[in-house]
């Protein structure tokens, strides 16, 4: 066994290797590992955030859905009411129209009757005159007896 020169050489070698590792080997490896660690941590945080956002969205979705449902039912009720009122209005209008038509019919019937009565009266007068003529066997001077005939007509 001889201790000395070899020991010094080995110590120098050790020092060189420590320096080399400290300078060239450890920093890039440490950097890469730390960077990856950070990346992973960020990714996990992002995932957590995404999960929270999803839950938030879910909550919002159900809120909006409920609102929409409420609104829809409200609309439906309103529509029904509106339809009912339209029907009522139409009914009222129809009744009015019907009344008017009936009234008009009544009126026209009355005038018809009046006309018929006038005609009848006229004819009766003519008949009466014709009858009288036959009875008198002579021509009645229509012009001279016009006043009398008109009086007769009015009396009918």
């Amino acid at each position, binding site marked *: 066994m001889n201790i000395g020169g070899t*020991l010094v050489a080995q110590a120098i070698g050790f020092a060189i290797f420590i320096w080399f590792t400290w300078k060239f080997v450890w*920093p890039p490896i440490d950097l890469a590992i730390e960077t990856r660690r950070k990346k992973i941590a960020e990714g996990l945080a992002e995932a957590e955030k995404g999960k929270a956002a999803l839950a938030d969205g879910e909550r919002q979705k159900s809120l909006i859905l409920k609102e929409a449902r409420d609104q829809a039912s409200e609309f439906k009720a309103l529509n029904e009411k509106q339809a009912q009122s339209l029907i009522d209005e139409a009914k009222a209008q129809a009744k009015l129209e019907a009344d008017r038509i009936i009234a008009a019919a009544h009126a026209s019937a009355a005038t018809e009757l009046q006309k018929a009565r006038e005609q009848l009266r006229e004819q009766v007068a003519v008949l009466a005159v014709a009858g009288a003529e036959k009875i008198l066997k002579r021509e009645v001077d229509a012009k001279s007896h016009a006043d009398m005939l008109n009086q007769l007509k009015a009396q009918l």
Partner: protein
Amino acid sequence: MASYKDPTDYISHHLTNLQVKVLDGWMINVDTIVNSFLLGCLTFGILWLVARRMTSGVPGRLQAAVELLIEFINGQVKEVYHGKSTLVTPIAITVFMWVLVMNSVKLIPIEPLAWVTHLFAPYWRPVPTTDLNTTAALSLSVIMLVVVFSIRAKGIGGYIHELFCTPFGANPLLWPFNFAFQLIELISKPLSLALRLYGNMFAGEVIFLLIGMLGAVGVGGVLVAGLLHAGWAIFHILVVALQAFIFMMLTVVYLSMAEEHH
């Protein structure tokens, strides 16, 4: 293929370093240095290649493997060390990876490896951590770092104050005892670090050699040696990783203790 006189020759041959004399008669274990430097360059070169192409997106297979390893080490460091220094994790990575790779050479069967290395050298110990020089170099460097960390955290005055006034008290009469205590701590830390790793690796290597010697007995010996070698190697996967881990953990613990105020 080398031939050996007797079992002792076989074992001692495999436990002898290739030594070269440099200035002032200092002997250098060339095999230890070359092996450990080659393995270190390979390991940290691969780590560097992966680090250069790091992406924070989807990692490739190699990057995922490296990340797993580095994150494991960094996790251990973060659990123990709560200071601000960015040097602790690189130190831990260096210690763990280098020791792990150097220990792992042991899992290559020693005799076939020797056939290759003996082509160019008479002696070649493949596992650098079976050389006390390597483990002592690591542990002494660690304890120097501990001293540096202590001084950086407490200031030079604070550190000297701690050396003399803890653990027994600030009374001047107690200064020698405090200092002796601290000195023992300072010496025992690197000693235990170095000897634990060296002892485990060296003993494991000797067992491998003893098992390998069975191969000299004959065909039956070869079969038994093969089975035993496989068993011991499988067990050693644990030892190899565990020793690297222990060395790293103790390094981190010592460094974090260095920054604590008493």
